[in-house]
């Protein structure tokens, strides 16, 4: 276990602010938002030491963190690539070609769904409905929704993300282009 694992001071400040949103003694409510912050800070996934750190900061038991982290689909319990491509696979997206999009990404990146590219840049994941059915097919990468996908759009996105090279988190600034 890494002994000196710590949140950055600015993240700790944010965590304290989040904890103040709930009544006295109900700070466990901060668990979900804090897990998002932890995941963004520690390479996009929640290792056991990171979850223990969250437990410590919130003064709750580690098991209370593990059971929550393992319940929700947005928390990664294994390392993921810098860009987690989450392709919606549910009905409306499926009707508008989500399977084709997944196959195209698989071919382009040379990985199967659930795998990460050897350079650690991309992980491909299929997810359930992201509420973007009217702009199907779509994928989410970090906070950004990429909608009305075509093969060309996917190719452009992959190339842009490679050029950028940065890890994408749910806290990224988003250019809202929808509708």
């Amino acid at each position, binding site marked *: 276990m890494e002994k000196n694992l710590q949140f950055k001071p600015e993240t700790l400040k944010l965590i304290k602010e989040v904890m103040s949103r709930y009544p006295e003694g109900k700070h466990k409510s901060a668990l979900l938002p804090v897990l998002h912050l932890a995941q963004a800070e520690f390479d996009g996934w929640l290792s056991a030491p990171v979850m223990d750190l969250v437990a410590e900061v919130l003064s709750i038991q580690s098991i209370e963190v593990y059971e929550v982290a393992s319940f*929700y689909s947005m928390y990664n319990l294994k390392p993921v690539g810098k860009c987690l491509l989450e392709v919606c696979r549910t009905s409306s997206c499926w009707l*508008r070609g989500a399977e084709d999009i997944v196959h195209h990404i698989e071919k382009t990146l040379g990985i199967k769904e659930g795998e990460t590219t050897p350079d650690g840049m991309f992980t491909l994941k299929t997810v359930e409905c992201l509420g973007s059915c009217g702009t199907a097919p779509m994928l989410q990468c970090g906070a950004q929704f990429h909608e009305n996908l075509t093969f060309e759009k996917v190719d452009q996105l992959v190339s842009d993300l490679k050029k950028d090279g940065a890890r994408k988190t749910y806290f990224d600034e988003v250019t809202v282009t929808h509708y």
Partner: protein
Amino acid sequence: MGRKLLLANDHVPGIQSYAVYREKGGYASVEKALKTMTPEAVVEEVKKSGLRGRGGAGFPTGMKWSFLAKPEGVPRYLVCNADESEPGTFKDRYLMSRIPHYLIEGMITSSYALGANTSYIYVRGEYYYVIAILEKAIKEAYAAGWLGKNILGTGYDLDLYVQPGGGAYICGEETALLESLEGKRGNPRIKPPFPAIKGLYGCPTVVNNVETIAAVVPIVNEGGDEYAKIGIGRSTGTKLISASGHINKPGVYEIDLGVPVEEFIYSDQYCGGILNNKKLKAVVAGGSSVPILPANLILKTANGEDRLMTYESLSDGGFATGSMLGSGGFIVMDETTSIVKNLWNFARFYHHESCGQCSPCREGTGWMEKVLHKIVHGHGEMKDIDLLWDLQRRIEGNTICPLGDAAAWPVASAIRHFRHEFEEFVREGHSVKDVKHYFETNNISS
């Protein structure tokens, strides 16, 4: 064209900002309620409006509010359900990202009516960029004096916070949402006690959908009676419909309840007809959980009357020949769609999203997915169709929360109306044509 209430100003440039929203008459309902009405009078207007829960269940909102317990010295909470996860539904995301102040205004007016001094908007975590938009709008509302202590000098205090989810469909169920908001796994609670008696932190709580809370704004502004004039019978007001699938114009439409389904699908004002001039095959009218209906039954009821976009008309005929308005997630399927494959897609969804608390749902959803996988991959037998029927029947009504029912209804309705397709799949297996290769067959990409 019907009138627009919630989306009257959705295309005004800068409407996301407080200044423009206010300029367009925003926050009038807060002024009116806090300065000229008692909380009870606001509840009374909502009752008169006939507003029904827009999240899917359609329960009368005024009645839900009147059930709220008011013991002395115990805080009460209003929690907005913005966990929008029902496949086919994206109206709340549109409203929140486009006009964030509309929801905030509705939250203040509604919190005042319920006597809540702390309120939360629980937004699904995947909508993090929407959360950022809401947070910014809430800051503006605090700065302008609509939130915080002694709002408008009336002595009413309100704090409003946004809470992110972690990715779980089940948290759209109100007691699972409350568990999640308390920092736990989203396992639904046994009811009773209902949240109105024992909700967030064991205190009386009302949980309402985004669109429901937004609808309180025009109800307070215009009066409940005026709102009730829109629509037909017990389906009053306007409704946001999320239209998706094989249509020319997918998107969010605000309709007067009562628009004929046929007009909604084919009119250029709404969906604009079926994509690529194909024929309509089936519609899932209210989000993935409601029964699927074939073209003939979605356009006309079994009695031959025009099917209308209302709670009553869509459910006319019960589950034998009808469906539900649900969340208004309107998924349209053209003639190339394989109903069996779509059902497998739904079954996989419900299996993935079952919280695992009740065995009929935990085991049953997985079992149904496996049987459908088997059929879709060409290994099905005729008896598997009956097995599916039996499985859904044993899940429905036997679980703590409605996810079990939601998983069962699509299966039951698909078999009821499209049994021949299941049989064809069993007979012919892999060779059944479907929409799998969408991009190739539609020449959409290179």
